[in-house]
């Protein structure tokens, strides 16, 4: 056994040298696609996979890989070549430890779609050699959702109207996760931007809750909940027929799904951008909601949902 281990280590060490020459992907090397572990990420991962396969690339499927940090680490380490990322996530997570980068992010950058994309794309290219393709127009940000019935009864479709309603003493019970309730750029940002505040009695804070959970609370109407924390592109919003209140003043960071590639891969296959950009351009909130819903609500597999989407929009030949 000892001999075996030594031999293995020696071989491995010897191979490092060989690898030094072989680091850039050769033509024909498969592209590894990763994704985080929630529906939208998996579906977007599958969309990327099928689009690339359709274009004749060999692709390895590593979707559903892990949380944010796992995917990011894997991408930086070259274990995967691409995964769908969000500018909002990047801007609040990846440059914390780099003081100059952190400083250069101005107030309001995260709420501005273009500015935040420009910032993260340039930072990533400069610091990590990662290339952001064109972001989708969809915005998977924190949002407040209400039932359609409630929206129609009170004539409220955006946060301006909602703030007015609250300030006029309207009845509100909001179910939310703790993170959204306490992050400075979460609920407090809504307060300051739209000028309203909810009292403790008007909040039902579920620790660690996800939109699926808060929305279920809204759907069941438990504890008089009539507003729920949601993500902009939740599939469940369609299932429950909820209305997402618009955020016209951009109080929340913008989370636009964007494929992020290792630089080497894009340099080896520059035409990839031409394949994926048009597809991501189609993803607005309703499209992405529908796609997510077909998985989360209808129970289609992410593969089938992605294929159906691509076929419907004529991206497969």
């Amino acid at each position, binding site marked *: 056994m000892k001999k075996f281990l030594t031999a293995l280590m020696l071989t491995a060490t010897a191979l490092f040298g060989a690898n030094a020459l072989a680091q850039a992907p050769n033509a024909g090397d498969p592209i590894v696609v990763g994704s985080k572990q929630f529906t939208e990420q998996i579906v977007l991962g599958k969309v990327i996979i099928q689009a690339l396969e359709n274009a004749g690339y060999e692709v390895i499927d590593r979707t559903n890989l892990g*949380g*944010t940090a796992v995917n990011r680490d894997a991408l930086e380490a070259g274990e995967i070549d691409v995964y769908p990322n969000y500018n909002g996530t990047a801007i609040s997570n990846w440059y*914390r*430890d780099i003081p100059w980068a952190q400083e250069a992010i101005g107030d309001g950058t995260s709420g501005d779609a273009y500015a935040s994309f420009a910032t993260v794309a340039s930072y990533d290219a400069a610091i990590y050699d990662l290339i952001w393709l064109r972001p989708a127009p969809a915005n998977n940000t924190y949002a407040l959702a209400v039932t359609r019935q409630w929206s129609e009864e009170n004539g409220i479709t955006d946060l301006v109207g909602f703030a007015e309603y609250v300030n006029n003493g309207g009845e509100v019970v909001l179910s939310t996760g703790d993170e959204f309730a*306490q992050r400075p750029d979460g609920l407090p940002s809504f307060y300051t931007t739209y000028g309203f505040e909810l009292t403790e009695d008007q909040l039902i804070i*579920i*620790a*660690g*809750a996800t939109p699926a959970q808060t929305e279920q609370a809204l759907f069941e109407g438990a504890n008089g909940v009539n507003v729920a924390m949601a993500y902009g592109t939740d599939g469940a919003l369609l299932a429950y027929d909820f209305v997402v209140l618009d955020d016209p003043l951009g109080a929340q960071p913008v989370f636009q799904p964007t494929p992020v590639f290792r630089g080497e891969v894009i340099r080896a296959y520059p035409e990839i951008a031409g394949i994926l950009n048009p597809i991501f351009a189609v993803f607005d909130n309703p499209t992405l909601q529908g796609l997510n819903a077909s998985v989360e609500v209808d129970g289609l597999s992410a593969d089938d949902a992605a294929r159906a989407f691509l076929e419907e929009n004529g991206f497969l030949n």
Partner: protein
Amino acid sequence: MNWTRVPGVASLLWATLAVVLFALATVSVPVTDPELREAVGETASFAPDTWLPVFSLSNRTVIDMRATNDVRVLGFGLFDAVTDAREALEADTVTVTLGWFAAFMALLEAALAWGFRQREEKLVRPLVRAAGIFIVIWSFYGHEPFWDWMLRGLFPTSPDLLYNTNTLVSLASQHLELVIVSSILTISIGLTLGIAVTRSTLREFLPLVSDVVNSGQTIPTLAIIAIMAPIIGFGFWPAIVALILYGLLPIVRNTIVGLEGVDPAMIDAAKGMGMTPAQILWQIEIPNASSIILAGVRTSVVINVGTAALGAYVGSGGLGNPIASGLNQSINPWVLLGALAAALLAILLDYILGRVEYVMTPKGLQIEQ
């Protein structure tokens, strides 16, 4: 004659140790933030997101100046004096007095050495000591300057250090609440079940119960909690139900093993002396099985501490929260904070139950051990 046995000498030794420990275990944190220093003496606002550890006789004064400019007192204190924050800032260093804990413990030992004669040692001393350690660790949770200092040292560049939505003490309280409520229920159910199936009238159910109990152990804890959530809902109770289901197994198993292991000759002798079945159970069987049963209880409670941490994923609160949030948002200091606190809590409960086990095992049974 063993002179350390003399109460006066022993307590004197401990008290001396207390002073030494107090002197040694004091950590000084330099106040380097210029903004902070300038703010002293002004009424102007502090920068948001600043945590200010402050020297005090108390371990509970942590001043939270994020977002608002109020001075808020967080945490849970053992000693009650509060010093003015500004006064503390005028000094060059902020001192975190870890020594208080060591000193408290040493003084407690001194009190024990002074106050209790050997006769009571067996019962009182381990329990008082366990209680003392509990108070110390609990104060430790409340000593946020320490945690802040530690995390700052480990993660110098991280903008987030302490968990921002809740203090460690209240998280630990939630955790403890989960563990205590579930343990009380678990122990009652488990003991009843274990005792029931070892009675002659219900003995035929014993193999069934141990079979179910053993295969129940193969269900992953996370899965139990997860399955309970959609059925019962989110929050406290699904976690409790899961904790009960999972914690039941060691107690039932050990109760059965313990009671079955009682020497039949002993029971026979008791019967021969005219004891009723109830008397045999309470005076013979349970005392003789107590060490094994209590070992099961201990295992069960420790498992519950671990499972309760997973409760964060179904919104039950507790020390799993900073871990889960930290992992979600990749804020490592939160993860470490929650992990250390949860580990500490588990070890603490294990220790305390170990003392309880020791105290509650009949003396005659300890001799051969």
